């Protein structure tokens, strides 16, 4: 379970940086549902790295993952670091 702060910050980033619709972004929404293509996922990996200070490889975020999944990935990295 990711902490709510990470999920909230990630959600804000998806709306402010990527222009995702606020109504559609939720923890359970997948990136495919949010219309993120392969290049958007690479950019998300880069932006997440900058925002959260953790290393995220472009292969690690896939279209079938949910926003919650990525928040958990970030949290796992933050704890490990």
């Amino acid at each position, binding site marked *: 379970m990711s902490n709510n702060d990470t999920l909230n910050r990630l959600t804000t980033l998806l709306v402010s*940086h990527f222009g995702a619709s606020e109504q559609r972004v939720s923890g359970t929404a997948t990136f495919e549902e949010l219309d993120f*293509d*392969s*290049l958007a*996922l*690479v*950019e998300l*990996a*880069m932006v997440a790295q900058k925002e959260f200070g953790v290393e995220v490889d*472009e*292969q690690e975020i896939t279209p079938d993952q949910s926003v919650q999944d990525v928040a958990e990935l970030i949290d796992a990295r933050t704890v490990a670091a």
Partner: protein
Amino acid sequence: MTADHRRAAVLCGIGTWLPPRVVTNDDLAQQLDTSDEWIRSRTGIRERRVIDPGTSTSDLAVEAGARALKSAGGGNVDLVIVATTTPDHPCPSTAPEVASRLGLTGVPAFDLNAVCAGFVYSLATAVGHIVAGIASRVLVIGADTFTTVLNPHDRTTVAIFGDGAGAVVLRAGTADEPGALGPFDLGSDGTNAELLIVPAGGSRQRGSGQPLDPADVHFRMDGQPVFRNAVTRMSESAAKVLAQAGWRIEDVDRFACHQANARILTAVARTLEVPEERVVMNVDRVGNTVAASIPLVLADAAAAGDIVPGHRVLITSFGAGLGWGSTVITWPDIDLG
């Protein structure tokens, strides 16, 4: 501010040439499993120019070079540099033929291959020649017919690249004049050579003793890591050159980024926090024209009145190699021909 009378290279002419044949996304969709919507959403490209059989890189380079010389008010130059990855032949270089066809036989001329960063590398090379006193007026041409190395069945690369040429004339002047180029930031990373590559055609394949695999004569690209490297390298290089120039990001009136793909441009601009309206763009009409990209977008924006004299312009590029480079210029009052 005190005047800076150090010798510098000053932009005094610009010219471009595109082959006349337009290939739209719908044209591509008739031959490949793709669509206008798919190409536009991933690249921002609507159409590109493609050479007809019988045309080569030198033909485009001569047309652009002649227009740049005319824009500079005619006269001779004492060096010709052609930035290209698609020369007319593996040997000799293309620049001597281009120079001769421009009436410049006898003038030193050579090619420079730094792929999509080739034009910025060539500008830096020309500046070096001028500042060192080796040359006083240089014609720099970026020309590529990259469609000649594409796999016609690869919908990704066929959608991205187009053919074209752009050229500038640099003259000896002083660092405080509008149009003075520099400083520069240049860099490379050969550990990622495989990300953008034409495997065959060079000594690695010819010296291998192995039969030629026809698939290896075409360009290959690994899109996701290229995207990440392009955005990271161009953002970092642009930031470095701004620091060297003593400019803040707010000082940048126009941002001319290598026209690789609209998504890369947008991501670089967001990273640098350059407002969208300051980013010049023509990738929608010409695609990625490799070494021709920077002079084409500068000339297009100047012709449209989007870049005007006095504008402080940040230029950055990135390509196979990997290689990247950035510079700055205060746009001079030049005849656009």
